[in-house]
């Protein structure tokens, strides 16, 4: 520290672990995160390799054995046209696990760009855009989806676009408030004092610092995207038959629960529940790791 160093052992003036390493470390110590991750990975594995393990073809009907209760042949019973519920549950994550992450990705990219721009430039553009986004957020996703699907017809792309665009303002809001806070920090002024361009300041200076809130928001949104995809499928506006999708299966079978055919819906419901909870446990872990 000074011109004349006294005889002393090497100074510990540099902390060994980098901030990113600390975050990873606390992630791996978080039981919540690990449990959540395990559940999600289980369903991802099922989506990828499930058909090799499924005892029956999830799409093959067998009218004679329709609505059979759980038994040794059909662990989870069969549905109204005799398809094996267990096999369908195993592979039922396939569509939701492609549609929901893609929607989240779209929302993150669009939301981050929007949030960076509005937060960095502020002023009238920000006011107007923010107000519009705020108003958008007032409308529930389900209703936006309803309108869009009435207008555009149903397809996976529509679902991705609808969910992505309705989540984008939420991510934009998070990013914007993070950018507003960063903008007040002196390193932004220091960049201006180097005549850096706005793009450089936004993407090289500010963006790396707001990755944590974006990551947290993205994992949380992934949970809600699964929520939304499942709900839309259940409402008949999402994934279409004959997919073994869970929400869709519940939609086509729940009319009969009054008749006691509980197995046609229960296992699908539990599967959705476990996936959503898994994603959110992982998100909670990520949140905790960044905020410790």
């Amino acid at each position, binding site marked *: 520290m000074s011109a004349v160093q006294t005889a002393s052992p090497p100074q510990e003036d540099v902390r060994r672990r980098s901030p990113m390493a600390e975050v990873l470390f606390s992630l791996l110590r978080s039981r919540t995160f690990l449990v959540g991750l395990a559940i999600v990975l289980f369903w991802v594995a099922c989506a990828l390799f499930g058909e090799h393990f499924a005892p029956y073809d999830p799409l093959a009907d067998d009218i004679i054995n329709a609505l059979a209760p759980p038994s040794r042949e059909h662990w989870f019973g069969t549905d109204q046209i005799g398809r094996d519920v267990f096999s369908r549950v195993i592979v039922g994550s396939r569509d939701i696990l492609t549609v929901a992450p893609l929607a989240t990705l779209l929302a993150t990219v669009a939301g981050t760009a929007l949030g960076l721009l509005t937060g960095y430039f502020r002023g009238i553009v920000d006011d107007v855009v923010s107000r519009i986004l705020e*108003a958008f957020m007032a409308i529930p996703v389900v*209703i936006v989806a309803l309108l869009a699907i009435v207008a555009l017809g149903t397809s996976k792309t529509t679902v991705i676009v609808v969910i992505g665009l309705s989540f984008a303002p939420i991510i934009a809001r998070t990013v914007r408030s993070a950018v507003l806070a960063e903008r007040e920090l002196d390193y932004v002024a220091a960049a201006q004092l180097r005549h850096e361009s706005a793009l450089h300041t936004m993407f090289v200076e500010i963006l790396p610092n707001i990755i944590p809130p974006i990551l947290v928001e993205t994992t949380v949104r992934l949970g809600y995207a699964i929520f939304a995809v*499942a709900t839309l499928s259940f409402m008949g506006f999402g994934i279409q038959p004959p997919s073994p999708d869970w929400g869709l299966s519940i939609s086509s079978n729940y009319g009969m*629960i009054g008749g006691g055919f509980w197995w046609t819906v229960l296992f699908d419901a539990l599967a959705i529940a476990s996936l959503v*909870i898994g994603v959110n446990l992982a998100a909670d872990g990520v949140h905790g790791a960044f905020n410790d």
Partner: protein
Amino acid sequence: MVFLGGQVLPGNVGRAILGPFADQRAVDALNHTLGVDRPLLTQYWSWISNFVQGDMGTSYIFRSPVAPFVIDALGNSMKLAAVAFVLVVPIGILGGVIAALNLNRPLDRIISLGGLSVTVLPEFVTGIILILIFGVWLRWLPISAAWPKDAGFFIQLYYLILPSLPLFLVLFGYIARMARSGMIEALDSDYTRTAVLKGLPWRTVIWRHVLRNALLPTITVIATQTGYLIGGLVVIETLFRYQGIGSLIFTAARGKDFPMLESGILTIGIVYAVATLIADFLYSVLNPRIRLGSDQ
């Protein structure tokens, strides 16, 4: 001070106007694709002014004015939402407070993780599971919300318990979480330390010093949940075959009954705006910093 209060309120009015405006944009995009294209503002104004006068147009499907349907459905939805709200606000706050007071102990873990888990479940999933448990296996509660004609208050309430539960669960975790983090922040604050070091009994510290500051943010959050609540209503009302605003919009959308659809959505926008307004009002009443401004 009055000036500052006046600054807060117009902001809300702006939002109140923008809510329905945005709805119209969405609806307008729809009109565009269907070729029903007129200058946006003209259409908007004539429609809005009619709406304000109570004329919501005529339903394509029922061939009769939309207004009675919407008003009826809104009433039904309000009943359902009210049951969920009346239950969830106190219980959610209580859960969050208890969790914070037992921070990092098992009770906190149960409430926090339990709350997190039920909050993120889609309403139809919890709905199905609850129907199976209470309606099909135990047979304690009716699986449909359609109560018999001229049912009294308590009968209606009995029919509404099961449908309101999924809404309750979704909101519970959210409110409990907010209340918990508000509590933790307040408990860790310097003013709580001051209160404790004054020698005040713990109860007094909590009731007088902690709770009020802790729950302020929760109040605003509850209002913003109205939007999610309405989304939830669409699903719940379909699942339980209940004649509310959600199922009205759903049916209208499927049947492409646009006057009905537009009115339903505008109604929701207004309800949302009113809820936000109430929350902002409550917040400013409870927070002297906004109410009084600063003398300096």
